[in-house]
């Protein structure tokens, strides 16, 4: 069982392109349709909760559904198996990136990639704003956070902690 779990979740990690949201169809294919370990609802429920917690969404989903169905030991195996392809592949790329010297061709390529990433981030943020339908308090909080981070140079960790505290008190007004 340990080996089976490991193999399946390693595959999920390897074939997920583009982060948490892209993972869901790959995960469904492998552990619901092919292996039949979970029902579709169990995966969806786990995914919903994983998205709302701290940490990495894909790893959280994997851990949560495996822990509920099997046990904590297998959940850890599944979490590690999901991470492993990333760690292996990105270690190679990271080593190359740290040693390669930048020549003019590379410089133009990297600059263009920066533009591409900038556009991608802008598009994602617009989607987030659209989806969350902020009210007046929400916009106020958003602007407050920006002033604290950019203007007053507060630590991002501190800002998240403060937001959690504020939300626990007044989150229902947002």
């Amino acid at each position: 069982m340990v080996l089976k779990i490991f193999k399946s979740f390693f595959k999920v990690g390897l074939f997920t392109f583009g982060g948490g949201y892209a993972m869901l169809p790959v995960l469904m294919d492998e552990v619901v349709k092919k292996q039949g370990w979970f029902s579709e609802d169990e995966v969806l429920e786990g995914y919903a909760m994983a998205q709302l917690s701290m940490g990495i969404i894909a790893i959280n989903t994997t851990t949560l559904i495996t822990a509920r169905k099997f046990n904590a030991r297998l959940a850890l195996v599944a979490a590690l198996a999901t991470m492993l392809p990333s760690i292996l592949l990105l270690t190679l790329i990271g080593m190359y990136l740290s040693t390669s010297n930048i020549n003019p061709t590379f410089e133009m390529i990297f600059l263009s990639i920066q533009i591409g990433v900038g556009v991608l981030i802008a598009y994602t943020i617009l989607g987030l704003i659209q989806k969350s339908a902020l009210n007046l308090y929400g916009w106020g909080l958003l602007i407050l956070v920006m002033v604290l981070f950019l203007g007053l140079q507060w630590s991002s960790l501190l800002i998240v902690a403060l937001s959690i505290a504020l939300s626990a008190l007044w989150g229902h007004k947002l």
Partner: protein
Amino acid sequence: MMYLDLFIRFLLIGTFTIGGGLATIPHLIELGQSTGWFDERFLMTMIAISESTPGPIGINMATVVGVKIAGVFGGIIASIGVALSGVIMMLLIAPSLSKYRNNRYVARILKGLKPSMIGLILSSAFLLWRNTFLDLSVSSPLLIYGGVMVVMLSACLHFFKLKSFQIILISALCGWGLSFIL
């Protein structure tokens, strides 16, 4: 000692990351600024690589940054660190999932966190955009190239629904072409 420092920093980053890959970027910018381990240009390249390779983006970013800071073990330690608090939390809530889902305070926190996470991500985006703009503004042909790229890539995303790794691939190819002209 370096490894321990790295582990604790990434454990904290993971603990204060809610809502996926992009939410780690403000913390990573801050990590670079406060330690001098890497600059924002490295971060931008690293984000591009992490978005266009398989696997969870947060793990990908942690691995690349970890390797840059402390070699192969650094990558492993950073990845485990960034995922650990989420994994522990999932193991804790797994036995009684529905109880937590319907908790009043959990619901409030989730609602309140949305605008502040967007605010943080938008702030980081401003810092990254400013950097790219400064890099482009060394010459006017380069600035025009940047403007054309922004319009073209936005159109590719919006109208043709291209995936993020395709956008990055197109950008890289354009950059390669540009290096022959300039």
